[in-house]
């Protein structure tokens, strides 16, 4: 079956494109900061061409079939780029949905004499564009997930630094949840750094750890024991009042481990262990 809409789209492509772009430009949510008019024009024309190609086959329903591959390709890559650029789902979906309005407007003009045909064409086009916009959203969400995954990896990479604060003194600020995997990374980094810098004091700061339960405590104790085997003494700092009370109620025994409320206090202890003292510089006369 030849498609009536396709014929009309062929004939009136310029008008549809213009109406569509005008619709998009009028939309208050259009992100002119994120893309130029020229880009919008290019993307719109590309999609309209491939869309027209696809419906020429007469297939209005099955967007998984071969005719729609190019359309879906364009939509997918467009959604993913938009997701990465920071567009909202609404802004992305509006792109496809506003095409519906443009086509319907042109069909109305062209098929004004034949109401029955007009309605059946509009219904078909409407269903088709709905399912295309759903697949746009799916691709959009996938793009977002990629962003999240990348960020997670980045956080894991940067979240366990071992800092050399003074000769022989290492500090390890721990931020976020301590699970087995992260403890392993932290422990490896710390032990390696103890060897590299021949340090004998390591300060583990847990100010940034939201919850200290028995598993986290167990991980900390293991890290401390391992460091001790290598001849380094550990000080755990950053124990907040509510964490201290919780640890007591849980019944965790941290008596064998030196603990301090703040990193400053831990640093002071570390200095005195090294027989260092920090004194105020004498004021110049």
């Amino acid at each position, binding site marked *: 079956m030849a498609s009536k809409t396709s014929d009309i789209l062929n004939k009136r492509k310029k008008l549809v494109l213009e109406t569509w772009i005008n619709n998009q430009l009028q939309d208050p949510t259009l992100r002119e900061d994120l893309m130029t008019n020229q880009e919008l024009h290019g993307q719109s024309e590309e999609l309209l061409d491939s869309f027209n190609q696809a419906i020429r086959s007469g297939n209005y329903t099955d967007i998984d079939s071969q005719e729609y591959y190019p359309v879906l390709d364009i939509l997918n890559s467009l959604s993913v780029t938009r997701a990465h650029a920071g567009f909202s789902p609404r802004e992305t979906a509006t792109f496809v949905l506003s095409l519906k309005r443009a086509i319907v407007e042109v069909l109305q003009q062209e098929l004004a004499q034949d109401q029955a045909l007009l309605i059946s064409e509009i219904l078909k086009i409407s269903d088709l564009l709905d399912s295309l916009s759903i697949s746009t959203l799916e691709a959009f969400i996938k793009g977002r997930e990629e962003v999240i995954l990348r960020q997670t990896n980045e956080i894991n990479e940067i979240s366990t630094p071992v800092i050399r604060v003074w000769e022989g003194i290492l500090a390890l600020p721990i931020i976020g949840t301590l699970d087995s995997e992260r403890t392993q990374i932290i422990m490896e980094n710390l032990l390696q750094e103890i060897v590299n810098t021949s340090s004998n004091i390591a300060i583990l700061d847990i100010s940034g750890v939201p919850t200290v339960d028995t598993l986290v405590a167990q991980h900390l104790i293991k890290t401390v024991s391992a460091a001790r085997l290598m001849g380094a003494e550990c000080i755990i700092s950053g124990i907040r009042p509510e964490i201290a*009370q919780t640890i007591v109620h849980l019944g*965790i025994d941290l008596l064998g481990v030196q603990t301090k409320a703040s990193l400053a206090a831990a640093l002071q202890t570390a200095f005195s262990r090294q027989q260092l003292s920090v004194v105020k510089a004498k004021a110049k006369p």
Partner: protein
Amino acid sequence: MTMISLNKETLKIGTEQDVILFRQRLKEYATKIGMSLLNQTKLITASSELVRNILVYAKKGEVLIEVVSDRLQTGIRVTFKDQGPGIADVQKALQDGYSTGKSLGLGLPGAKRLVNFFDIQSTPGHGTTVTIIRWKR
């Protein structure tokens, strides 16, 4: 004493990430009812122990968070349910330092000490349900 549930939410637990999400949700609820920071920490730590038990022993399960009120006070009730192996000797499991796994053996007894109400029902081979309540103050 009748207890009314004001607001509730069920979360599935199956991975380490679910634990983090669950703790965040729990914190939101606790903050919303105005629970003090200390009690929040106690509730979250106790819940963290129990949800960890689900992951370690039953692999998966679900958690129900409820804001409850008995007219005198408001608090949060959390129900941890799994279809895991169950606990053969609940009394023993509630003793400090007893563990069938490789942990410190403080999770269950510690969690019990951190909350106002603690109930555990377990049938070996069928699973375990733990219910805790922490009042706002």
